[in-house]
């Protein structure tokens, strides 16, 4: 795999707060990334630095092997669509899209026109008069139609309604299949984008928490549902991420996977095995991180073991 972005020890210090805390990762070519984390985790700051819109306090960022700051060669290959993008007064969506077509070398006018229809974007209304959903659509269309080699979507879909959001996911997948490129989707609607993303990067309080493929992450945990006593038997010394009990039936989410023999045994014991939704995993990992920071296990997992660090794969 070829890395299009290499981040090393990136740190961003604002007055009084450490927004990004010494993170390092690589972004591979032609991959869809989920860039996840809670609000204020440092996602936007990181993406702003990758696109040279903001400045690192320390560490280095290389995009296509070069520093992106004031670098026309690098910047013209990237597109950063952010939630709440500001547009000049008096601009209509038509103006904004026209301007985008001037600067993104791979801009596809035809595709943009199709997207305008899909999202029912009024072209001649002033942007300041658009609804939140329509405003989001402007950014989404620019991000898709620019076909930039690296495209960042920083939650621009938050303003879209459910129908428009699923339309966005659909169009993104279709276009990605035809024109592979590197896409970073930042979101906290993790379940919605879970099927799209191939790799997951989670940051929490400015620190890198997870950096692995979505499949690896999913394989990290399993939920067993069935007779409570039977379920307890399978926990062994595995870490319990989540436990629910209703009468005699329990559902327990375990870190780690079951071996073949164990899986067969579980099936024989009438336990149902189900994958853990990505969202739940990310939430658990973030909470774990939080409780680790606060120094006390307040997340109700009595069997919590040593804190997990990013990339420390745990397979059995």
């Amino acid at each position: 795999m070829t890395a299009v972005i290499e981040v090393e020890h990136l740190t961003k210090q604002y007055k009084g707060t450490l927004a990004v805390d010494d993170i390092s990762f690589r972004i591979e070519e032609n991959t869809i990334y989920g860039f996840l984390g809670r609000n204020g985790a440092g996602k936007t700051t990181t993406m702003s630095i990758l696109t040279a819109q903001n400045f690192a306090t320390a560490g280095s960022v290389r995009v296509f092997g070069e520093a992106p700051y004031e670098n026309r060669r690098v910047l013209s290959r990237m597109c950063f669509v952010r939630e709440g993008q500001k547009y000049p007064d008096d601009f209509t969506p038509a103006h904004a899209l026209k301007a985008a077509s001037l600067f993104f070398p791979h801009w596809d006018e035809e595709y943009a026109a199709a997207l305008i229809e899909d999202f029912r974007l009024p072209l001649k209304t002033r942007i300041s008069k658009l609804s939140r959903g329509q405003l989001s659509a402007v950014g989404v269309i620019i991000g898709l139609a620019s076909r930039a080699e690296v495209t960042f979507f920083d939650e621009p879909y938050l303003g879209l309604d459910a129908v428009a959001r699923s339309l966005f996911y659909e169009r993104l997948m279709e276009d990605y299949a035809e024109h592979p490129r590197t896409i970073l989707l930042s979101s906290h609607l993790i379940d919605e984008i879970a099927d799209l993303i191939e790799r997951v990067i989670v940051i929490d309080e400015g620190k890198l928490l997870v950096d692995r493929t979505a499949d690896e992450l999913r394989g990290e945990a399993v939920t067993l549902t069935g007779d409570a006593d039977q379920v307890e038997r399978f926990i062994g010394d595995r870490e319990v991420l989540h436990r629910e009990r209703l009468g005699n039936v329990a559902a327990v989410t375990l870190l780690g996977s079951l071996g073949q023999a164990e899986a067969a045994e579980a099936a024989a014991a009438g336990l149902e095995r189900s994958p853990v939704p990505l969202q739940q995993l990310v939430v658990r990992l973030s909470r774990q991180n939080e409780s680790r920071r606060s120094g006390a296990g307040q997340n109700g997992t009595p069997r919590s073991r040593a804190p997990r660090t990013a990339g420390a794969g745990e397979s059995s």
Partner: protein
Amino acid sequence: MSTTGTLTSADFTTPGRRAHTPNPSRTHMDSTPGRSAPAAQPPSTLSRVLNVVRVQYVNTYIFVWVPLMVLGGSLVISLAIYAMIGADEPMYGGGGQAPLWYFLVAGIQAMTLTFPFSQALSLTRREFFLGTMLAAALSAAGMALVYVLLGLLEQATDGYGIHGYVTYLPWVWESGWASAAVLVFALVMFFFVIGFWFATLYRQFGTVVLTTLLIGLAVLLVAAAFVITRMEAWGDVVSWVAQLGPFGAAGVIGATTVVLGIGSLLSLRRATP
């Protein structure tokens, strides 16, 4: 995509107008499925800078209509006053300055309204700066032309028939229409750059720092005036300016503008959208 011509609303009305034109990059990529978009030849800095000018002129109010309206308004008011006075000898007034001061505002707007969007278009800050300055220079040239034409009109009609002069000021026209044009151009750029720089500083440092800076600047100017007054040197200052002539003044203002421009580019390089 063409890099010249102006943006008109006609460009936007028919989004599907190119539906039958196959996109070359698309056909190319269709033939190599599974490959990523090839690294296109990066567009030249010049074409990107010219496109910034086009983006700045999407909103023609800032650079065209508002300065003309301000000039028109101050012309009407000046003439009304001249008509009321009704003197027999030529009357000169400062109404013609008004549109020049407006360019402080134009500089602020060109920065605050367009800079965040320019970053979303993946422009470098230098490209945005050069394009915006070029846009202002076009407007400044237009203003210079309008001033010269009005000045010629005033000369031809003996001050609109009432001996009232707004743009034809003897000292400005000392070396003919060219000196008036150059001086107007320099003043427009001077005010524009100041507005642009202040807006950049405001974005970067906020209200307190900018206000402090402005107060500091005012104190410096007052101190200079005080020193000149104490030294009873106003006569020297006036004669120095008179000696400078319009070309010399334009040169001094132009050089100052270049220095201010360099300062504002350096500030912009640290600005975040």
